[in-house]
């Protein structure tokens, strides 16, 4: 058995809400099956108030062991480094102080969601609360715990980034930890589990045929590829959203809107409007990962010239107006 303590700080609680959508098996059965015992979770546990403060104190004083500390939401350093924008209720003490103390006792520390990993949306704009992640402040390593932090079992903070996280990214990370099957090499450059971060959102996108021909959507509800005009970053975003799927059969691009690369540090400040593609001389500035620019330009113009009428027309509407041709056998 491994025990787990879950804390929420400067986030929206959406990663917990998303995690409760886990299916086959459901969340509670998944945790049971993995031998994970919830010491306390703010949404799911009975204990409240003084009982919880007693538990946290017991962990800090080593009277209670802690296997996995999950933190959801960004860590709020403000105002002026005091952490007073988030005092842990009932304790009169900033949450960042509790997290530092508890992280020092945990065998594993998991940042659940982009807020806890990198600062996330709470760190956007003027970053009023001085939000950062557990071990990153945006792309910069450090964050609340510092670049050298290692949890008791030797791993740095595991960044299950996403806004929100897919329920299974979280449960699978927990199951891998419980089984002793996660090592430093299983994390990518930003300490995200590679089992989902080594994929691109583009993989499995049902708009791939439109992408191939650069048959583009111009407005919401159009079926075409959203890379050229609508701000879609699916070809650069590290996640398996279009092969794993959300809430049964969904993904952002299936829902008709751009991938905003929510698993990446600093996704909250793209430097342009989220749902509009910035371009230079008509060519999108952000190009697909691993693709040389000259090839992209050459292939795009070739593909546009070769676009079938079916793909071109369907791209600019909200439903299929031209079905694929049915070839009768003798004409093949």
């Amino acid at each position, binding site marked *: 058995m491994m025990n787990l303590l879950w804390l929420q700080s400067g986030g929206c*609680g959406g990663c917990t809400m*998303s995690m*409760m959508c886990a299916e086959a098996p459901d969340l509670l059965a998944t945790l049971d099956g993995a031998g994970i015992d919830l010491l306390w979770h703010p949404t799911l*546990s009975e204990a409240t108030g003084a009982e919880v403060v007693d538990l946290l104190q017991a962990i800090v004083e080593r009277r209670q062991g802690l296997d996995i500390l999950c933190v959801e939401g960004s860590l*709020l350093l403000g105002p002026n480094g005091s952490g007073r924008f988030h005092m842990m209720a009932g304790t009169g003490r900033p949450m960042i102080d509790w997290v530092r103390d508890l992280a020092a006792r945990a065998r594993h520390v998991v940042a659940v969601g982009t807020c806890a990993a990198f600062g996330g949306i709470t760190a956007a704009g003027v970053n009023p609360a001085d939000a950062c992640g557990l071990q990153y402040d945006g792309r910069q390593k450090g964050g609340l715990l510092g670049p050298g932090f290692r949890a008791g079992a030797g791993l740095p903070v595991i960044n299950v980034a996403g806004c929100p996280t897919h329920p299974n990214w979280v449960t699978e990370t927990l199951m891998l930890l419980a089984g002793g099957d996660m090592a430093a090499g299983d994390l990518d450059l930003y300490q995200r589990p590679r089992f989902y971060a080594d994929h691109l959102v583009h993989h499995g996108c049902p708009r791939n045929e439109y992408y191939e021909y650069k048959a583009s959507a111009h407005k*919401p509800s159009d079926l075409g590829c959203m890379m050229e005009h609508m701000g879609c970053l699916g070809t650069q975003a590290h996640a398996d959203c279009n092969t794993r799927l959300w*809430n049964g059969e969904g*993904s952002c691009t299936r829902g008709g809107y751009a991938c905003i690369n929510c698993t990446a540090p600093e996704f909250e400040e793209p430097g342009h409007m989220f749902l509009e593609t910035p371009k230079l001389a008509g060519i999108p500035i952000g190009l697909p990962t691993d693709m040389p620019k000259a090839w992209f330009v050459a292939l795009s113009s070739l593909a546009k010239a070769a676009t079938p009428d079916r793909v071109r027309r369907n791209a600019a509407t909200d439903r299929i107006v031209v079905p694929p041709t049915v070839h009768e056998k003798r004409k093949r």
Partner: protein
Amino acid sequence: MTDAATDRRLIVGPFNRVEGDLEVHLDVAGGAVRAARVNSPLFRGFERILEGRDPRDALVIVPRICGICSVSQSVAAARALEGLAGAAPPPNGLLAQEIMRAVENIGDHLTHFHVFFMPDFARAAYAGRPWFGQAEAGFKAAAGSAVREAVAARSNLFHVFGIMGGKWPHTLTIQPGGVSRAVDARDKVRLGAIVADFKRFLEGRLYGAPLETVAALAMPGELEAWRDHGPAGHFRLFLEIAADLGLDRLGRAYDRFLSYGTGLAPAGGIWQAGAAGALDPALIAEDHSHARMAGRERRHHPFDGSTVPDGADEDGYTWCKAPRLAGLPFETGAVARQLVGGQPLIRALAAGEGGTVRTRVVARLVELAAAVLDLGQAIRRLDVRDAWFTDIRLPDSGRAMGLTEAARGALGHWLRVEGGRIAAYQIIAPTTWNFSPRDSDGVPGPLEAALVGAPVADGERTPVAVQHIVRSFDPCMVCTVH
């Protein structure tokens, strides 16, 4: 009469099974709460984050205020942007937005009842009660059979988002002008099947009766009959517990309610002094006198509001501002919607016991039954041949508000745009109304008032009656101060 030996001050927190962070300060005298102060101890500053951005970026930012009512936040933003443009979605677009909002609200009601509220009755402190065995088997936190069934039923229901919204929470399908994904004939039958399955779960487990029967409840006597010889189910169990623990006498606040109404049933309104009335949003203003916010010298209408945290403030005890309508605190939520909408049972309960813990929960459960029936009808009204989206152009300057309902009550966004950028964005969330601090007249917010008189046993550090009252509001603390 006060008993000096039991006079004490309690600070209750961390308060879990509410969404977000909450701390409650209690003055206890003579075995009961004499005064309460409600503190929302987390400040992120979303209204400031929005400033200076393209107004359309609000669609990415505002759902992330809240992971439990993100769709309601999206709808409020879409309404405000549509208001700015002076445009509206086509009928399908509006219907699709409202279907998603309704599904989120329905899921929230279920989460609230099974995961947040009922587990308190499975505590060891209630072990001697006649209903305890049933409560423990069904509602033990994270373990009870009913809790687990509800979590699974919610996941299945949220497949509506997999089809219509891409994902939940934080969908971007909801756009000013409609939705970014058309529903085709196949989607429509699949949506119908999902809702029918959810209806079966509610009828089989929660109510033990057809949803139509629950939605049609009209007289308080019918609740007593249901409690005594109604069908077995979680609803009957709640009614037994409520009678045994006197939840119909617990947690009454001001009996003043407000609702903005929704895109499907536009009638918002207020309920005051036992009668329905019109709501004038121009009379809404926020008071900062007990919030840790600059700008205490006057009350601010949200078009003229500000969000400047003042951590050094000594008078403030929360990051939550105090919204008032015509200078008065109002409660919002399912009770408010049902009262304004004319549901006879809830009107009778309000006239009798007032807005109590029992009234709030019954209103939620009656609304849940009616909302699922409405949802089924709304899906049937989707016209798969028609348009889903109208392309609208935003002006470079102007102001507009977006009003809608989250599960826990009235949600409003007030937006001002200058030079194509957001100049100001003010949000009043439902729990900002319900969990507001005192105002400059010293008048407590609704929860602060509702807690007065709650019993506190000797030695109780986290009084269980206080927990019932707090959770009866279904608070969403991350929204409260955003």
